[in-house]
């Protein structure tokens, strides 16, 4: 299926030829995506002569400008003022205008969710009033009282999908647990009579009685205080739920509040004080979350957050135990994890401290002739691949204008500078990551790495999907004596395991990272060449900033560093050319690819960082905002403002004295005139570009216009990779299912249902489908059978039931659901068909 997407601009025969080269799925263990990535490169270059020989980005210039008014986006795109917008839009009117425009188009991302947070304290609050939501059964019944489809379609105008379960519908875990999830969803489907019956029974059990249609407790009407966010569509959601609750016999007090005022009520107050019963909540993720196992611990237990509400959670002991195990990765293998997850979902629904309503979609508006890889959860702003895929559909090169609600929001520096989404988005174009997450699955793929080997302690639940990582197990992983593990600020060098007296130190994991041979041949934007010193300065600075004896000591860096230190077990450079690095750590993730992404090195241009270090040591600048406040100095910005003249002075000093940071560590790696060349390069860059921001990414920062809220990136022709390397990710290959079969099946007959899976009108290859499952539900909504659909070829699958199976269903309505999960998209797709089983035709005659 990825192939279809990759070859969106290719002809059919090429598609067929490419797909014909696919190896059998079982042999490559889900590694097809990685392999296919190589296939379209040549094909794309053949198809588009402009791409031949081009390196780096696909446009010549990208202009980022501030545009805060999303209502104008459709007009600005149609007008040609902008080609792409960085922010996601949830406004329905904008969505409709974009959808109706011939000049504009959009991408959909699924990173948001909306829920009802219920106050679990009770049965009575401190003031003696009743809290019906203290009863889990009433909370659970709320799931059936609410019509999620109405919320998704009527309130969110289609920019949302119903969500019942505590895990999102667009995450890999939902795909893995699709069958179980669907069965539970059906159990909690919209059924107001059943919900009302439960509420009535439980309210009576609490001692409440209904007078004149209103529930009373101890002579007073039961009034529910609903905190309703008034700044988005949650206002309508809150009103809708309030109306339902009034219909159930409760009085409601609707507290319409903005974000801060709402927080003060539901987060800051003691839930036992009874200031609120329910809050309309929302959560956002800006990247595809590979592992949702920790969600139960976060959303339903006191371990989630230190705030009073979380501390009031008292989950069922079994649920609490499972949530903790999932959070800590305490399971032997993925099978056990799947079982725990399924059970946790069931228990979470019984707990229902939160009622999940919808997964909200955002549109990313763009011009119709623009292509870009957007993240399935985070949209364009969350996409790591956007700089490498952004292009005009019909040409290479040109000027692209991107609207963002803010740019240059806070000072830029690579150590502790801005962390605003849109600043980070721009910075991704300037830098060059070692690995990049797949925007549709979240799995990391190599960019600067050739391959990686991961060894984990036996029994550690880790899996691998893509072929660039090999995974092994070992009974014991001993950290070598010569691995670096600590920092000596006095001597300015790393200490080895042996020097710190930790001989025989064990680690849970060992990763060997094989970087590409050209890793240290890549140019920085100022013409310097990336070197090992750029790696070392990054490591050393991180340790130094956590050392109280260092002139760079930053208390705000310490908590995060301590977490890193508790898991870090050592670095060892196995080879400098090609660069091979060994990393020991106790940090564990579900995916081997994710773990490798957490072991890769970052590179910092030592000659620029060195200037900033000089300034920080002399109290004139600081890397972090917190330290700048403590020093009463400016927060380091490499792109603009008062930092620049200070850095100019430091550059003069450094050039005159040949100063380098951490001389004991870096000195041996900077031979000859390497220091002078670097200083000359950055001086020339500063003179030409008027800033100090350099990177090694596909675009360089050409000019900065802070007051005007704009900046200009230009194509960096010396970027090492061909421009079409990542083009396969321009569009998420989400399959479309067409389920067809009989609507009436007579006893004694068999039934055959066919499923056609297509993407962009073309059949989906079986190799691109990870699972094709079916679920058969009887008239009561009970799951009576599940299994795998049979592949027929040509993008078709079949589900067949023999006469015995049909007879066992009895007479009445049934439903067949199919769930397909793609290897290339984290989001499962569903299709369903109702059918009726009737008496045999012979009997009827």
């Amino acid at each position, binding site marked *: 299926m990825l192939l279809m997407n990759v070859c969106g601009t290719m002809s059919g025969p090429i598609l067929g030829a490419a797909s014909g080269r696919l190896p059998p799925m079982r042999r490559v263990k889900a590694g097809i995506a990685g392999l296919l990535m190589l296939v379209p490169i040549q094909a794309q270059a053949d198809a588009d002569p402009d791409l031949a020989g081009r390196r780096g980005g696909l446009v010549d210039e990208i202009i980022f400008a501030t545009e805060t008014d999303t209502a104008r986006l459709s007009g600005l795109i149609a007008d040609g003022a902008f080609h792409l917008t960085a922010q996601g839009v949830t406004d329905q009117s904008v969505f409709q205008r974009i959808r109706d425009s011939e000049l504009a188009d959009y991408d959909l991302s699924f990173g948001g969710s909306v829920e009802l947070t219920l106050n679990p304290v009770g049965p009575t609050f401190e003031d003696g009033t009743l809290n019906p939501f203290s009863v889990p059964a009433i909370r659970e019944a709320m799931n059936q009282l609410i019509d999620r489809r109405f919320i998704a379609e009527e309130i969110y105008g289609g920019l949302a999908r119903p969500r019942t379960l505590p895990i999102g519908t667009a995450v890999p875990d939902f795909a893995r647990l699709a069958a179980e999830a669907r069965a539970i969803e059906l159990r909690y489907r919209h059924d107001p009579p059943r919900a009302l019956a439960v509420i009535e029974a439980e309210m009576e059990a609490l001692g409440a009685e209904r007078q004149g249609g209103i529930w009373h407790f101890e002579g007073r009407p039961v009034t529910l205080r609903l905190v309703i966010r008034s700044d988005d569509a949650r206002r309508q959601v809150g009103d809708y739920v309030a109306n339902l609750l009034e219909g159930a016999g409760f009085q409601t007090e609707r507290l319409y509040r903005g974000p801060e005022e709402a927080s*003060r009520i539901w*987060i800051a107050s003691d839930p036992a004080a009874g200031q609120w019963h329910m809050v309309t909540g929302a959560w956002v993720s800006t990247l595809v979350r590979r592992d949702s196992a920790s969600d139960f611990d976060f959303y339903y237990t006191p371990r989630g957050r230190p705030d009073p509400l979380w501390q009031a959670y008292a989950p069922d002991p079994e649920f609490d135990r499972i949530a903790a195990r999932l959070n800590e990765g305490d399971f032997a293998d993925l099978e056990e994890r799947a079982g725990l997850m399924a059970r946790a979902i069931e228990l979470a629904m019984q707990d229902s401290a939160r009622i999940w309503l919808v997964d909200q979609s955002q549109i990313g508006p763009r011009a119709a002739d623009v292509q870009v890889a957007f993240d399935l959860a985070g949209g364009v702003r969350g996409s790591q691949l956007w700089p490498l895929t952004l292009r005009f559909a019909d040409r290479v090169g040109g000027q692209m204008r991107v609207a963002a609600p803010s740019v240059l929001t806070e000072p*830029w520096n690579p150590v502790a500078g801005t962390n605003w989404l849109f600043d980070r988005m721009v910075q991704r174009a300037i830098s060059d990551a070692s690995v990049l997450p797949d925007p549709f699955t979240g799995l990391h793929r190599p960019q600067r790495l050739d391959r990686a080997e991961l060894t984990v302690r036996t029994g550690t639940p880790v899996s691998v999907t893509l072929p660039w990582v090999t995974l092994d197990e070992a009974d014991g992983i001993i950290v070598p004596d010569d691995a670096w593990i600590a920092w000596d600020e006095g001597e300015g060098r790393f200490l080895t395991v042996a020097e710190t007296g930790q001989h025989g130190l064990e680690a849970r994991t060992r990763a060997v990272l094989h970087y590409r041979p050209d890793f240290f041949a890549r140019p920085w934007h100022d013409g310097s060449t990336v070197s090992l010193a750029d790696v070392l300065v990054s490591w050393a600075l991180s340790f130094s900033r956590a050392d109280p004896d260092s002139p760079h000591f930053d208390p705000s860096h310490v908590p995060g560093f301590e977490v890193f230190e*508790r*898991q870090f077990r050592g670095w060892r450079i196995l080879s400098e050319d090609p660069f091979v690095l060994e990393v020991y750590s106790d940090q564990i993730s579900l995916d081997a690819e994710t773990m490798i992404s957490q072991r890769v090195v970052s590179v910092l241009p030592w000659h620029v960082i060195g200037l900033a270090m000089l300034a920080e040591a002399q109290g004139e600048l600081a890397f972090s905002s*917190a330290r700048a406040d403590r020093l009463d100095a400016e927060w380091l910005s490499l792109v*603009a403002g008062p930092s620049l003249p200070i850095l100019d002075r430091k550059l003069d000093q450094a050039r005159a004295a040949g100063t380098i940071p951490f001389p004991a560590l870096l000195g041996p790696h900077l031979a000859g005139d390497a220091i002078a060349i670097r200083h000359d390069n950055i001086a020339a860059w500063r003179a030409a570009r008027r800033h100090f921001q350099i990177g090694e990414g596909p675009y360089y920062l050409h000019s900065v216009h802070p007051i005007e809220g704009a900046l200009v990136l230009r194509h960096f022709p010396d970027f090492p990779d061909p421009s079409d390397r990542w083009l396969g990710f321009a569009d998420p290959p989400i399959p479309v299912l067409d389920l067809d079969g009989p609507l009436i099946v007579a006893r004694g007959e068999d039934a055959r249902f066919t499923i056609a899976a297509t993407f962009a009108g073309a059949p989906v290859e079986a190799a691109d489908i990870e699972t094709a499952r079916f679920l058969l539900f009887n008239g009561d909504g009970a799951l009576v059978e599940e299994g795998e659909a049979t592949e027929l070829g040509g993008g078709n699958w079949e589900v067949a039931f023999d006469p015995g199976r049909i007879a066992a269903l009895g007479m009445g309505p049934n439903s067949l659901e199919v769930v397909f999960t793609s290897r290339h998209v984290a989001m499962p797709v569903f299709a369903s068909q109702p059918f009726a089983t009737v008496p045999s035709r012979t009997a009827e005659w």
Partner: protein
Amino acid sequence: MVQIADPGHGQEPPPGTQIAPNDARRREMTGLALFMARRIVALVLTVLVGVYMTIIIANVGGQVDDLRVIQIRADVSDAVRSDPGVAAADRLALIEAQVALEVERLGLDRPFVWRSLDYLRRAMLLDLGRAEQMSSDLGSRQVSAIITERLPATLLLFGTANVLVFVVSIVVALRLSRRYGSWLDRTIVALAPSSAAPGWFYGLFLILIFAFAWPLFPSGGMVAVPPPETALRYAMSVVHHMVLPVTAIFISSIFVSIYSWRTFFLIHSSEDHVEMARAKGLPDRMIEARYILRPTLPSIVTSFLLMLIGLWSGAIILEQVFNWPGLGTLLFQAIGFRDTPVIIGGVVIFAYLLALTVFLLDFLYAALDPRVRVATP
């Protein structure tokens, strides 16, 4: 106190009293000094009260501290949770440590009353200090840098528009005051209520018409992006971008301004001394300049100066509509961030400018109107 001199009410010495010229000058100077001192003390007290009220209101008497701590907790929790490198066992401790650091950085661990006094002391000394959350566009945390960076854009836009409105309305009003009841006069009177709609309202229509339907002007921003590299082209681009917002302000203000001044001049035009001048057959221009404009000059100057000060705060919605990087937007952001030093900084400068203007106006009145004198002790 400034008084209108009234011979026979104690300001002049009784007949027959001899006062040496030096003594008279000394008494005048002493009176002036006392007057200035009293005015300065009064104005400083006014500024002090105004600024402290702003501090209290901006922090809702310290309750904003709770909101800020909640926000810090939420931000830190989300950041820690989204960091895959943080083990579950470390999460709560890391959240608490980072929250504590941020609370300490912002001084939220100190009682609000002490911080409010600290804010006040620094504000009165015009030490605007550092912002807590915001940075200037250039990346500085200094409040003075944050404000002064946006000031030129606001002054340019609102200065141009308001000076235009002021001059045009004075000229047209003066003319209309002599053509009372003419068709133009009636038209202006009829159009005056149109100023009930603010500038941004007209701005939306102007954008729709002249930026989208008939794209003659840009829909927003201060300059083309990327900004032109030569100064002349840059200036031309700024002018091009100013057309719609200036027009919006102009349309929203001009009719009521003309109407107001026209009424003002009309009243003065029917004063006895003006009628006398007309009866003597003096030319219209001389009557306007000598008998209408001059006596009304204090009011005109007061209005002009207050208008200039009013530019300081910009206009939040108009700047948002036109995406204009001015002070209005800045203060709006500062309120959103609850960045107290920036809010206070904006108010302090406005308060000092206002106080200074009021102080200067006292002297301007005396210079412009011979009837105005400082009361001598």
